[in-house]
């Protein structure tokens, strides 16, 4: 029961980057969107699945959802994380 969300204002490609790089990229770039807009982070490090929502909780940003990326043959499963800049 996921509610429809608008398109992200920014997509950060952190595929192939190990923890904590995807979080660092998000922390650096979230200021590039306006308050209320969405940032999408693409990542495939297993730690990202826990750390993206945990970062949002620590930083009081809104974690919207995690979606599995379509499998690519020979590559690791990745995820798309949506985060809304809340301040």
């Amino acid at each position, binding site marked *: 029961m996921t509610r429809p969300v608008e398109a992200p204002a920014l997509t950060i490609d952190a595929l192939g980057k*190990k*923890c*904590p*790089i995807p*979080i*660092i990229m998000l*922390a650096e770039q979230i200021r590039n969107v306006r308050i209320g807009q969405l940032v999408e982070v693409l990542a495939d*490090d*297993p*730690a990202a*699945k*826990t*750390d993206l*929502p*945990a*970062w949002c*909780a*620590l930083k009081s940003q809104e974690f919207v959802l995690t979606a599995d990326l379509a499998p690519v043959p020979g590559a690791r499963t990745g995820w798309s994380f949506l985060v809304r800049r809340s301040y």
Partner: protein
Amino acid sequence: MLTALDDGWADPARLYREGRRAQLLLEQAREAVAAELRCRPDELSFTSSGTQAVQLAVLGAVQARQSAARGPGHLVASAVEHSSVLNAADWLTRTTGAAVSITGVDRLGRADGGEFAAAVQRERTLLACLQSANHEVGTLQPVEQAVGVCQEHRVPLLVDAGASAGRLPVPAGWSLLTASAHKWGGPAGVGVLAVRKGTRWREPFPADDRENHRVPGFPNVPAVLAAAASLTATGRERAASDTALRALVDRIRAAVPATVPDSVVHGDPDARLPHIVTFSCLYVDGEALVTELDRAGFSVSSGSACVADTRQPSHVLAAMGALTHGNVRVSLPSGTSAESVTQFLDILPPIVEKVRQEVTA
């Protein structure tokens, strides 16, 4: 330990003098450990590790209650159990088709009593598993509540006391109990399995008559003697040592968020083990942090993915929804000095700063 090697080298199953001597010492050790863990000596067997104790407990309890007529049944375990518990449950799923309910925890790592109780009440629950305290973040678990629901529904309860045995009194009401000697300051290679009288349990491995028919192989008597000696010593000094360690952990819990920007301390600040504290630092590579602290003379663990063989982050931190990168776990041995904690707290902020600059560079 050396006396133990002199006196206990022989096979306790043999009838010659040295064998009888080893047998006598082994039984004295069993009585001493049973008294500390509040069980009967004949309920207690020594194993070759805490992991072996857990495997025997889980497989033996479940297989004793599985039947062809009634199916493979169902097990319950909290999401933050030691990996040996979760792996044994997974093994039963793969080899017997048993269903496993993994129940959730809150942000402090405490098992959700309601979810655990609901899972216990599912049909054909053959075993429920709840640790006494968490081995990574130190949070104490609601064992008393689990005992209540398990007794009401006649489900055996495994309490894995690996993290707390020798530090805190063992909770009452378990059907099976496991522990590990090296966690209480004893030698490696000694675990403890206790099966409460009246609990159904069947050897899950090929039959062997050692350790009350519960554990295969010649027990390591010298190591068992050393384990018992250190547990009884721990027991005597427990109160004073725990108060000291608890105060040191309180200092770390207060100082880390105050001196390291963007850090978070995990686990329950009060209802916790006296000697363990875990924290995570944002934007830091856990492996680099552990390496730098090691270079500075501090041996710490980490639940970060980059430190694990499997490249998976700690399942405990993940279940809590806690930050897994930049993770440091400090486990204070008895007798840790206040000066060494001060030193650690002094060098930590510059080390985190250094590793942060390297990772963003």
